[in-house]
């Protein structure tokens, strides 16, 4: 098993405790996390990426208990093994497309993907040296996907990647994420309330407000 969680619980101060369903994924598997707004989807994503520490339970990726890592080690592990695609691209504005990817590489000591190959796969070669402010929305999102992939992570987390896209582009982005995850043998978890995505990924869990 590449990635699994056990009895994951989390509580914001003074609020009810979230109980999360256990997850287990092999390399190349995809999972949808569905739920209404405010149901705790993003909290789960932050727990899975190690940005939040659970009240109890554990998150295990590639044999490492993610929630037990502290400080610089946790940051390094996240940079090397977990790729996160945010709802908005959040690219670093002063840098070019290529530099944004190089920045992600800087924090990882692991051998990553070939930048040129990755840019070509995501149909971004022609934009490699342009400033990120000159990108269309779709291109910017592909760059943010490339950034999540560049260190060859074992787990890819995507937060509402399709919420602002039309049907056609939403479908393209999901297949892109699936194909790339399969290619680097990573597990893929997509957090969304977008029902359209269910057509492409059948494996899902539902998060409910406690």
């Amino acid at each position, binding site marked *: 098993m590449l990635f699994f969680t056990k009895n994951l619980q989390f509580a914001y101060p003074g609020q009810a405790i979230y109980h999360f369903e256990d997850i287990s994924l092999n390399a190349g598997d995809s999972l949808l996390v569905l739920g209404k707004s405010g149901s705790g989807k*993003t*909290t789960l994503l*932050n727990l899975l*990426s190690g*940005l*939040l520490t659970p009240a109890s339970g554990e998150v295990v990726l590639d044999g490492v208990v993610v929630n037990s890592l502290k*400080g*610089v080690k946790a*940051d*390094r592990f*996240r*940079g*090397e093994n977990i790729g*996160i695609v*945010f*709802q908005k691209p*959040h690219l*670093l*504005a*002063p*840098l070019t497309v290529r*530099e944004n990817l*190089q*920045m*992600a*590489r*800087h*924090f*990882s000591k692991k051998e990553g993907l070939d930048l040129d190959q990755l840019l070509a796969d995501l149909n971004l070669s022609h934009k490699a040296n342009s400033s990120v402010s000159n990108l269309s929305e779709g291109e910017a999102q592909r760059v943010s996907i490339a*950034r999540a992939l560049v*260190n060859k992570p074992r787990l890819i987390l995507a937060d509402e990647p399709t919420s602002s896209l039309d049907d056609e582009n939403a479908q393209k982005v999901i297949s892109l994420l699936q194909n790339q995850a399969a290619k680097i043998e990573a597990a893929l978890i997509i957090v969304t309330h977008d029902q359209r995505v269910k057509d492409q990924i059948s494996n899902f869990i539902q998060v409910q407000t406690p």
Partner: protein
Amino acid sequence: MNLLKLSWKYLTHKPLTTGLNVLLLALGLAIITVLLLVQDQFEKKMTQDAAGIDLVVGAKGSPLQLILSSVYHVDFPTGNIPMDEAMRLSRNRLVKQTIPLALGDNYQGYRIVGTNHDYLNLYDAAFSYGNAWNEPFEVVLGATVAEKSGMKLGETFSGSHGISQGSHDHDKHAFKVVGILEPKGNVLDRLVLTSIESVWYTHDEEGEEESEVSDEDHEEHFHHEVAKSGFPQTDEDREVTSLLIQYRSPMAAVQLPRMINSNTSMQAASPSFEISRLFELLGIGVKILEGLAYVLIVISGLGIFIALYNSLKERRYDLAVLRAIGASRFDLLILILLEGISLTFLGSILGILLGHGFLLVLASQNETGVGAGLEAWIFLPAELWIVIYALFIGLLASLIPAWSAYRTSIADQLTKK
């Protein structure tokens, strides 16, 4: 990509804010640099030019003016003194050596100084070309004068009356260049040196314009040997402008000035005393400039702080993203500190260059004055402190923003919609 490059990219991403802060800091530091350089070189030059001169004796007036006109050749002379009185003083047992000076003319703003060969020896003058004057109207040019006027050995010119440019020319008898001095970086560089007789005869002509001078008289008058040391021989009542005196014993410092000031029609002034008085007077101006410089530096420090702090607000997402792709808290701290420090490093380098550039302009605008000898491209160890000081400002200004970046919670930041 590394953190240094990233911080540089963020700085250049906002060229106007960055530029303004760098410029403010640079201006403040430029003023400090100029003050440092001028103080250092001025004091050295002032001391060097006055070395070996214990006392200056001239006509009554401002003692500072006497020193400035007779030692540094910048101000107007206080007037002339009778030579017999001057000669009497030179025979005083407390006096080791006297060098008489006769001032009053210039060539293109460079002063023509009538004196004897002791004046050359006082400054250990050496010749690039030719040798010292032997007859009236033979002159030796200082290195700067020769360079700027382009005159060579054997060329002739006529001086103008007065010590600044623009008066009428003495065109009756031309001066002839017989020697050019090596550059020494002292006051001789910008002087035209000749015998006291030359200066006398130049002015005699003015009065005798109408009278006929026979060839014989002319021969006797203008082609005898001039005095190489001491006072020139003359039967007439002649005057000189001032005397440079060396004491025989330390006792002289106590007795001689008092004796001259109370018993003669002349006044005595000590270069070291007058110069320290001058620096005291200038000190107020220097203090004001220094104050202005520090205000500029503090404002630029605040500017850098505000710029970093504001940009931090806009960049909370960027910082969170950096954390998400593997940067540690410490990396973010370094990133912000690097921005502040590279900003001030740039400012300090620019400031030092500006300071030296300003000095270059100052020196080239003031060819005949005291500013002439200022060297723009001498670097002092103290300038290293300017850089260190600036880096410290950068560190201080970026400390709070860096700390706030260090403490940013990424989970909160990334989940804000």
